[in-house]
């Protein structure tokens, strides 16, 4: 028998990366379809949060004569129904899950492969979106039937929204990944992650629309990444942003993606040197 020591030839770089994303997304969809019921219950649990906000704000708006700070009940309904889609879209591999990844030995397996670590999560969660968005549609119709949203977006707003929800996904992936690096220094990072989530809730437009916040909070939010993961995508569809505001918002997202990626790369290269992989 002859000995075959030749290396297998490689396919092209960009074509392979595209192939990797498509294959991983397909794998994610296949995996998630195994858990249809779990996914639905997960989504119903997640929908509870905006429904509570929605009920509270529409009640207040009704008591205030139909609007709060110029936002009507119908606009609140539109905001929080679109919120549910944006929330599904910006679910990423969260910072706390890095601990699971390290402890279970999954990171060791990923490190052995010739692929930059971020690609695994970006591709997998991107695939997951297709399952959750398909499951979200009937829920959105149900919420619309109950709360009567006021929503009449222009074609440009729809196009910007499509880009913005993927931009939000990327911004959030980079920053959650960067914060997740803390797991390489401590196994008790939960307090920091909770603090990060609390700040995100307040400054992103997740808890309340940012225009209901004090002026200085709105200014601060403009210079932090959080708004671009929640508030901006929602506003791009339901708000009355000018074309300039829409395009500037996309540019801000692009900037935060680059900043987040650089931060991730720096923290990752420091973190990986601390990886001990003991027992796994």
């Amino acid at each position, binding site marked *: 028998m002859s000995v075959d020591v030749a290396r*297998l030839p490689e396919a092209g770089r960009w074509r392979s990366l595209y192939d990797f994303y498509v294959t991983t997304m397909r*794998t994610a969809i296949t995996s998630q379809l195994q858990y249809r019921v779990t996914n639905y219950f997960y989504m119903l649990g997640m929908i509870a949060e905006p429904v509570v906000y929605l009920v509270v704000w529409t009640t207040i708006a009704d008591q205030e004569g139909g609007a709060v700070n110029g936002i009507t009940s119908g606009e609140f309904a539109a905001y929080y129904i679109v919120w549910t889609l944006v929330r599904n879209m910006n679910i990423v591999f969260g910072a706390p899950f890095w601990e699971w990844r390290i402890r279970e030995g999954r990171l060791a397996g990923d490190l052995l492969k*010739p692929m930059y670590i971020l690609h695994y999560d970006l591709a997998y969660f991107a695939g997951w979106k297709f399952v959750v968005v398909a499951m979200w549609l009937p829920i959105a119709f149900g919420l619309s039937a109950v709360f009567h949203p006021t929503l009449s977006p222009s074609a440009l707003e729809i196009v910007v929204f499509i880009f913005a929800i993927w931009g939000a996904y990327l911004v959030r992936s980079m920053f959650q990944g960067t914060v997740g690096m803390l797991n390489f220094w401590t196994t008790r990072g939960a307090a920091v992650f909770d603090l990060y989530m609390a700040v995100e809730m307040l400054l992103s437009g997740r808890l309340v629309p940012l225009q209901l916040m004090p002026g200085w909070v709105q200014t601060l939010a403009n210079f932090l990444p959080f708004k671009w993961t929640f508030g901006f995508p929602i506003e791009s569809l339901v708000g009355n942003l000018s074309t300039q505001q829409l395009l500037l918002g996309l540019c801000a997202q692009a900037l935060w993606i680059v900043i987040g990626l650089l931060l991730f790369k720096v923290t990752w290269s420091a973190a990986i040197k601390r990886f001990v992989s003991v027992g796994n």
Partner: protein
Amino acid sequence: MPDPVVHVAELTKIYKVPEREAGLRAAAKALVRRKTRDVRAVEGISFDVGAGEVVGFLGPNGAGKTTSLKMLAGLLYPTGGNALVLGYVPSRRERDYLRQMTMVMGNRNQLQWDIPALDSFELNRAIYRLQRADYLAMRDELIELLDVGDLVRKPVRNLSLGERMKVEIVGALLHRPQVLFLDEPTIGLDVTMQKRIRTFIAEYNKRHGATVLLTSHYMADVEALCKRVIVIHHGRILFDGALASLADEFAAYKTIGVVLQNGGAPLDAYGEVVHHEGDRVSIRVPKADTSRVAARLLADHEVVDLTIEEPPIEDVIESVFAQPAAV
């Protein structure tokens, strides 16, 4: 002389481990001042491995063998020393290097849990940038070699431990790596499955000329696959050479088996009688005295047959592991 595939020089790994005494007082003290201790997992090991060699990395739990393999696979940054595998520094984890090696960790699942292994193989094809025709040929070859044709269509979670290990190995070798780091690949498997995996590793080595570094607590794995072994203990190499000469170095005794004409003769004066059944007697004697004792037995008794045996490899390894750590 060709360059070695694996070159290790003074490779060292030191872990910093927090520690404190038990109790509330010690816990309160640790709050103010945390004490850590340096654990020298691997301490200045050096060796070379040539192309196509299968080398057994032996040592008790905590000896440093897995840490060494992980450094060579690029999972861990060494604290000191150098390592080169296929000319690459593993800790840099260059794509080109990762594409030519693999590491299989027994009992560790790297395939997607909820879907059939075939889907995970597809993912690996994309990760390793394999061309479809090469991938299919390699996949089918491995499936045939390990006889897992009917397993790869089941979700991985439905496979038994041994079945899972076999499909894990297929997934890990799809890119036809030239260097294999196998960390206890047969752990927890029944003897039939162990044998199957051993046969497979030998066949893969033969077909593809791959270099293999293997750790295992099962001596049958080592005896079947490795002509050369490296024994590591307390982070240091105690022995590096042919498996056959391990006993010469470390065995303190040999066993003389004799079949006597007059079976009842007492032989306690020659050494420790470890077995006596009818005419057959086994005597354990210090290694240095073997020839002299054998000669005396032949001179003093009517010997029908006489054999001199090395102790079982397990006993030799046990005596190596019993060595205290250097201070």
